[in-house]
């Protein structure tokens, strides 16, 4: 599956995005490392049309005036959804993108159908976890199975820049977004929270906060996955996320036929 690169002019400026697949729309919000298209995206695109905007400032894109906080970034994304999708969508956010997705869901609940949070950043009480680690150590925490990491054509300096400085433009490095925590109860969407059993960047306390605050949330461990679950375990990630997107809360109920002896 080849994702097509496009650009849209919104009121606040231009946003570049990738789009591909067929089916109901899914908005994918990337993590602090920028957009890394993975096998999971390809698998999901079999049943969904995936929209993957690049956050201004990331991957060489320009920052936009007035888009300098997580809340204002979410508002820009709402404009993107209205413009390019033309209505509500299911939303997946990874890490920084999960934080971003939560702001979108509280500011614009009418645009978010089902919400998937993949090891979301922004809810690290006491600063536990985080990205402030030497590069080699960080790489081990991002992906447990580096052999599965997709080819990435972006220069290493760009990826580091995304992670080390660009993200700070939006949140200044705050570990716990208390303003957002206070509003998590406003999230109307059924929410699936996925968390790798090898996760070390986002602490488990994040899951506790989200479980406590979001009214309809389901928490799932993904076995043998570190922070970038979709890279470590694309089939498991798509197995549960795809099922959730297809059946909503009914994903709790096993609908698979027993294997036939024949």
């Amino acid at each position, binding site marked *: 599956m080849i994702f097509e690169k496009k650009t849209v002019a919104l009121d606040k400026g231009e946003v570049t995005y990738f789009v591909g697949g067929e089916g109901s729309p899914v908005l994918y919000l990337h993590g602090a490392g920028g957009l890394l298209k993975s096998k999971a995206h390809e698998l999901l695109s079999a049943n969904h049309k995936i929209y993957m905007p690049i956050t201004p400032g990331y991957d060489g894109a320009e920052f936009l005036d007035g888009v300098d906080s997580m809340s204002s970034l979410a508002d820009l994304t709402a404009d993107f959804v209205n413009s390019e999708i033309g209505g509500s969508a299911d939303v997946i956010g990874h890490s920084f993108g999960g934080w971003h997705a939560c702001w979108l869901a509280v500011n614009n609940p009418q645009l978010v159908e089902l919400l998937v949070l993949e090891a979301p950043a922004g809810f690290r009480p006491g600063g536990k976890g985080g990205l402030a680690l030497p590069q080699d150590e960080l790489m081990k925490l991002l992906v447990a199975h580096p052999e599965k990491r997709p080819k990435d054509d972006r220069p290493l300096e760009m990826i580091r820049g995304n992670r080390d400085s660009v993200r700070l433009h939006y949140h200044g490095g705050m570990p716990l977004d208390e303003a957002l925590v206070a509003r998590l109860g406003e999230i109307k969407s059924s929410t699936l929270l996925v968390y790798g059993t090898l996760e070390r960047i986002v602490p488990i306390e994040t899951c506790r906060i989200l479980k406590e605050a979001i009214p309809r949330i389901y928490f*799932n461990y993904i*076995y*043998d996955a570190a922070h970038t679950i979709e890279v470590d375990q694309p089939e*498991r990630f798509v197995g549960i996320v795809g099922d959730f997107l297809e059946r909503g809360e009914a994903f709790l109920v096993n609908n698979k036929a027993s294997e036939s002896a024949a």
Partner: protein
Amino acid sequence: MRFTYFHLMPWDSFSAAEEEWPVKNTYFDPVEATKLYQTYIDTMAYAEECGWDGIGCNEHHYSPYGMMNNCNLIGSMLTAKTKKAKICMFGNLIPLLNPIRVAEEYTMLDVLSGGRLMTGFMRGIPHEYIAYNFNPDESRSRLNEATQLIKKAWTEPDPFGWEGEHYQFRSVSIWPRPIQQPHPPIMMSGGNEESARHAARNRAMLGINFIPSLAKGREIIEAYLDEARLVGWEPGPEHILITFHTCIAETDQAAIDALKGGVDYFNSTLMNVQRNAQQIVLQKTKFYQSEKNREFFVERLKKAKSRTIEEAIHDGTVLCGKPETVVKQIKHAQKELGVGWINTNMKIGNIPNDVVTKGMELFRDFVAPEVRDIEKGPEPVMSMADV
């Protein structure tokens, strides 16, 4: 030094010359079995009165080798018949079972016993994989994943789902949750160095069974200690348990004679019926990932069958004799291995139950008082770092 009383619950009057596994169940007499279960359970409960710190059994299928297909049922009875002894489930065959069910049953035992449960997370012996129709090649990976899932079921405060290689559960929240926090002690098998390292990586206690020599036991323990240090923790004696065939009588010769009869029945009858099935699994699957471990398992069985009781006593791999002799053997084993727990298996094969009971009383009166205060370390307690 702490002691656990282990019971294999064997069918002790099997006379058929069967060599195939599974053994047809027309040989099983349910009425006789009712009496046998009762005798065994009473004996196990009596171990508490005789000073054992823990009482346990394990899981086997389809043969007279052992009658506890689900040791948790026996454990449940023991919770009602004992007051302070640990309930030692050594253990459930984790890869063959629904891990959530294991988490629930173990937790019930912990709660029913008022927090006295010690758990075994065992992979099982090869032919058990035929019994429950699981691929032996997957035994290790199933054990790994199920272990993590069970720990999560014990410790996770919120309902959660699990998307794994072997197990998928969309919503888990077990009732009850364990008394022992964050969870009851876990023991894993140390049948070889690979298993010992696996136990260390899981911060579990190490349980070593029927070693061919104390030197081999030491190698396994060294591997366990080495791996534990690599992953950042330091086991003490309280984390290491070794199982011995144990026979105590008024005289050394009486103990040797009793043990000879029991071991002969154990090897020639109870073990014999599963040997063929065991060979098929060992030869045709990757139950043992390395050839070295497969050979070690086979050699250990061969040696157990061919070695005389006198040789085993000389090698320090059984506890057998009058009380004074057994005290010396225990002290020697502790000194050589640094273990904090000895797991005694006294109903070996068809050793008569009254001989077993007499041995337990000799243990109570003359052995335990001499060895109880040997270095044993604190009670093993799990921390959140173990989760």
